[in-house]
C-alpha cells in the first residue's frame, strides 16, 4: 500500500470503529471493547508506519495528496480532501495514536463497570479520528470539520457523568467557550482563503514563504488575530481558558486524551501549520506572546493553589500550552512541536496516574490525600510513573520535559538576543521572562502535588485515614472526582493490569523522549533543539529553587500547621485569588453574563409589557364584540325573529330605494 493509502486509513479506522461501536453497543456488548481498542491500535501502528515511510522533513519532503471533495461555487476555491504529511504531522499523529491507544486500553479497566462505556468508547474513537484528520489535513475546511467534531466529542465526553450538575454545566461551558473562539476562527479561515485564493494550507505557506513570489496577505494582522481567537478557545489560552479546569468533571482518561494531550494541542498545532501567516504580522506575534505569558504565569499560580488533583493538572496543561504558544510566538515551530510531543506524553501519563491515585484515595482532594498514608503502597505503579511525569513536568534533566522546555526557552532567548527578521524582539523577551518564571512555579506546584499526594504522613494521619476511607463519596471540589469515585470500584482497589501497563508505556517517552532532540531537529529539518547553556542553567536552577522552597514550606507547614499545604505560605495574599482562578469566571459573569441577563430581562419585559400589550389590545376589541354577540344570544325565539324580520324590512327598503 502506498503511504497515502495508509495515511487515509489512519483517521478512517477509528471512525469506522466508532460507527461500529455505536451500532454494536447495545446489541453486542462483547464486541465493544475490541471495537474500541483494535482500530485505535491499528491506527497507531499505521501512523508509525506512515511516519517511518515519510521519514521526516518539511516543505519539499512532505507528501501531498488531494482529491476534490466538493465544489464551492468558486472554481478557483475548491474544498479538497487533502493530506499534507510532513515531519510535524506524522509525529503528532504518532503521539495522538499513542495517547489514544493508551487511553482506550486504560479505559477498558477504568470504566469497566460503566453502563455507558460503549458510547464512551465510540466517542473516544470518533474523537481520535477527528484529531488525526486535523493533523493530516491540508485543507482548512476539512481541518475545521475535524476541529468541530473534536469539539462536540469533547462536549459529550466532559458530560459523561451527566447525572451531576457539575458535569452538565462543565460540558456546556466547554462547548460554548470553545465555540466563542470558533466563530472568529471560521471567519479567519474564510478571510485567509479568500486572500490566499485557496484552502490548501501547504499552498498558502509555500506562497508566503517563497522568496520568488511577492505574495503578501493584505490584512495579516486581522486574519492572524481571528485565527488566534479560535486557537485560544481550543487550546485554553487566556482569556478563553476558563473551560478547561471545569472540564475535569469528565472521566480521567478523557481528561488525559482530550484535555491534556491532544485536542488542546490542536490549536497550537494549527498555529504551527499556519506559522507563516502569523509571522507575517508582528502585532499578532506580540499578542500571541503576551497571551502565552499571561496564560503561563497565571495558570501556574492557579495550579499552585488548587486543591483538586485534576484541577492542578488542568491548570498545568494550560501553562504548558502557554509554552507552546510562546514557542510559536518566537517563530520556532520545531520547539513548539517538540514540547507538544513530550508534553502530550507526560501529561497523559500524569492524568492516567492521577486517575489511579484518585481511585486509590477515594477522593480528588489533595488535602484529604495528605492526611492519608499508605497511598504509595496501594498504587505503587501510579506512584512511580507519576513521579516520572512530575519530574518531566518540572523540567528536571534528563526527563523529556527538560529538553523540550529548554528548546522553547532557547528559541525565546534566541529571538530576544539575536533579532531575526520578522520576529519581534519584544515577543522574545516576554516569552523568555514568563517562561523562566513559569519554570519556577511549575517546579513548585509539581513538588507540592507530589508531596501532598504521596508523602502524606501528618501526625493525625493514623486517626483520619480510616474515616476518609470509610466515606468513599466524600464531597470533593468542583473538579469532580466524585462521580468517578462512585463509578469506580471501592477506593483502594488496585488498578488493573492494562492500566498499569499503560502507565509504564507512557512513562518511557516521558523519561527518554527528550534525548532525541538531535534526531528531532534533523527530522524537522529545522534549527537545533539542543539545550543552550544559559537557559539550561537558569531554567533548571529556577526549577530546583522552586522545588526546594516548596519543600521547605511543606516541612514547615507539616510541622506547625494543621494543614500540610505549603501554598498559603508561598503565595501569601495571592493564595485566595489564585485558588479561584483569579476570579476570572466571576469577572466574566459580571462582564458578560450579567449584562446579557439584564438585556434578556429587559427584552422579556418589553415583550410582555409592551409588545404583548398591543397583542392583548388587539384581542380586547374582538373580545368585546364577542361579548356583545353573546348578549344577543338570549335564547328567546321572539328576539331572534324580531331581528330577522327587521333585517328583512331593511333589505326590502334598501331594494326599493335602489329601484326608485
Amino acid at each position, binding site marked *: 500500500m502506498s503511504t497515502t493509502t495508509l495515511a487515509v486509513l489512519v483517521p478512517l479506522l477509528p471512525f469506522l470503529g466508532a460507527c461500529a461501536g455505536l451500532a454494536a453497543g447495545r446489541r453486542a456488548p462483547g464486541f465493544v471493547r475490541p471495537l474500541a481498542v483494535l482500530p485505535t491500535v491499528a491506527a497507531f501502528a499505521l501512523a508509525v508506519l506512515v511516519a517511518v515511510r515519510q521519514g521526516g522533513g518539511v516543505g519539499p519532503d512532505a507528501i501531498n495528496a488531494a482529491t476534490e471533495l466538493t465544489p464551492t461555487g468558486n472554481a478557483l476555491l475548491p474544498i479538497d480532501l487533502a493530506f499534507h504529511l510532513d515531519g510535524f504531522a506524522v509525529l503528532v499523529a504518532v503521539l495522538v495514536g499513542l495517547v489514544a491507544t493508551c487511553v482506550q486500553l486504560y479505559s477498558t479497566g477504568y470504566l469497566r463497570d460503566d453502563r455507558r462505556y460503549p458510547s464512551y468508547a465510540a466517542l473516544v474513537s470518533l474523537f481520535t479520528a477527528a484529531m488525526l484528520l486535523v493533523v493530516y489535513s491540508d485543507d482548512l475546511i476539512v481541518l475545521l470539520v475535524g476541529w468541530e467534531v473534536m469539539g462536540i466529542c469533547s462536549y459529550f465526553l466532559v458530560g459523561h457523568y451527566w447525572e451531576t450538575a457539575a458535569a452538565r454545566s462543565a460540558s456546556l461551558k466547554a462547548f460554548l467557550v470553545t465555540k466563542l473562539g470558533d466563530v472568529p476562527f471560521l471567519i479567519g479561515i474564510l478571510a485567509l482563503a479568500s486572500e490566499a485564493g485557496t484552502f490548501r494550507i501547504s499552498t498558502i505557506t509555500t506562497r508566503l514563504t517563497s522568496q520568488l513570489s511577492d505574495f503578501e496577505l493584505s490584512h495579516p494582522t486581522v486574519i492572524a488575530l481571528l485565527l488566534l481567537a479560535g486557537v485560544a478557545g481550543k487550546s485554553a489560552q487566556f482569556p478563553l481558558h476558563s473551560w478547561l479546569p471545569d472540564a475535569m468533571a469528565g472521566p480521567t482518561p478523557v481528561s488525559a486524551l482530550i484535555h491534556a494531550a491532544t485536542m488542546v494541542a490542536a490549536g497550537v498545532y494549527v498555529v504551527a501549520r499556519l506559522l507563516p501567516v502569523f509571522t507575517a504580522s508582528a502585532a499578532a506575534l506580540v499578542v500571541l506572546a503576551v497571551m502565552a505569558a499571561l496564560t503561563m504565569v497565571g495558570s501556574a499560580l492557579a495550579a499552585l493553589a488548587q486543591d483538586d488533583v485534576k484541577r492542578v493538572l488542568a491548570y498545568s496543561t494550560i501553562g504548558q500550552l502557554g509554552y507552546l504558544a510562546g514557542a510559536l510566538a518566537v517563530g520556532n515551530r520545531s520547539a513548539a512541536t517538540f514540547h507538544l510531543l513530550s508534553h502530550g506524553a507526560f501529561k497523559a501519563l500524569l492524568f492516567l496516574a492521577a486517575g489511579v491515585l484518585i481511585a486509590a484515595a477515594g477522593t480528588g482532594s489533595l488535602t484529604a490525600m495528605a492526611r492519608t498514608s499508605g497511598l504509595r503502597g496501594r498504587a505503587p505503579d501510579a506512584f512511580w510513573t507519576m513521579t516520572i511525569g512530575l519530574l518531566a513536568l518540572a523540567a528536571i534533566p534528563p526527563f523529556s520535559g527538560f529538553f523540550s522546555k529548554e528548546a522553547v526557552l532557547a528559541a525565546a532567548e534566541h529571538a530576544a538576543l539575536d533579532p531575526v527578521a520578522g520576529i519581534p524582539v519584544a515577543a522574545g523577551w516576554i516569552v523568555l521572562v514568563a517562561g523562566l518564571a513559569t519554570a519556577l512555579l511549575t517546579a513548585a506546584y509539581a513538588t507540592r502535588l507530589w508531596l501532598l499526594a504521596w508523602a502524606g504522613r501528618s501526625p493525625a494521619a493514623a486517626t483520619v485515614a480510616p474515616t476518609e476511607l470509610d466515606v468513599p463519596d466524600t464531597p470533593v471540589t468542583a473538579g469532580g472526582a466524585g462521580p468517578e469515585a462512585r463509578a469506580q470500584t471501592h477506593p483502594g482497589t488496585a488498578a488493573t493490569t492494562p492500566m498499569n501497563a499503560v502507565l509504564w508505556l507512557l512513562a518511557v517517552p516521558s523519561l527518554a523522549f527528550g534525548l532525541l532532540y538531535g534526531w528531532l531537529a534533523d527530522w524537522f529539518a529545522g534549527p537545533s533543539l539542543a539545550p543552550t547553556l544559559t537557559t539550561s542553567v537558569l531554567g533548571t536552577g529556577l526549577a530546583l529553587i522552586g522545588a526546594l522552597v516548596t519543600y521547605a514550606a511543606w516541612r514547615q507547614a507539616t510541622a506547625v500547621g494543621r494543614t500540610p499545604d505549603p501554598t498559603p505560605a508561598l503565595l501569601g495574599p495571592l493564595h485566595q485569588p489564585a485558588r479561584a482562578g483569579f476570579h476570572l469566571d466571576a469577572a466574566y459573569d459580571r462582564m458578560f453574563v450579567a449584562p446579557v441577563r439584564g438585556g434578556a430581562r429587559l427584552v422579556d419585559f418589553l415583550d410582555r409589557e409592551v409588545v404583548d400589550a398591543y397583542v392583548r389590545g388587539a384581542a380586547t376589541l374582538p373580545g368585546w364584540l364577542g361579548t356583545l354577540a353573546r348578549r344577543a344570544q338570549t*335564547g328567546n325565539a321572539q328576539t331572534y325573529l324580531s331581528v330577522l324580520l327587521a333585517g328583512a324590512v331593511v333589505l326590502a327598503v334598501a331594494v326599493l330605494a335602489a329601484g326608485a
Partner: protein
Amino acid sequence: MHLAYPAVLAALLFSVGLYGVLARRNVVLVLISVELMLNAVNLNLVAFDVWLRDELHAGQSLTLFTIAVAAAEIGIGLAIVLLVYRNRGSSNLDELRDLVERDPGDDNSDGDAGDNTSRPTASAAAAPKGEVTA
C-alpha cells in the same frame, strides 16, 4: 272595486299579525297571530284571483289549500304547545330559552333534546319536572 282596498287591508292585517307574533308571550296567542297573518295572505290571494279572472283560479285553490294547511298547522302547533306545557309547566315563549348563550364552563348537561326530560332553564328552573296537567 279598487284592488288597493283588499291589498292594503291584507298588508295591515299581516303587520298586525306580525306584531302579535313578536309581542305575545303566550304560545297560543302567538298561534292566533299566525292565523291572522295567514288570513291576510289568503285575502290577497282571493283579491288577486278575482282581479285577474284567472282561468285556473289558482288563487282561490291556493287559498283553500292554505286553509287546510293552516288547520293542520294549528293542530300540530297546539299539540306541541301542550307537550311543552306538560313538560315545562309553562306556555310562555320567553321562558323557553334553552338556546341561550351560556358562559363557557357552565355545565352542558346533555339530556337528548328529543325526549321528555326537562331541561331547567334559568327562569323555569323551579318548574317541577314532568308536571302533567289536564
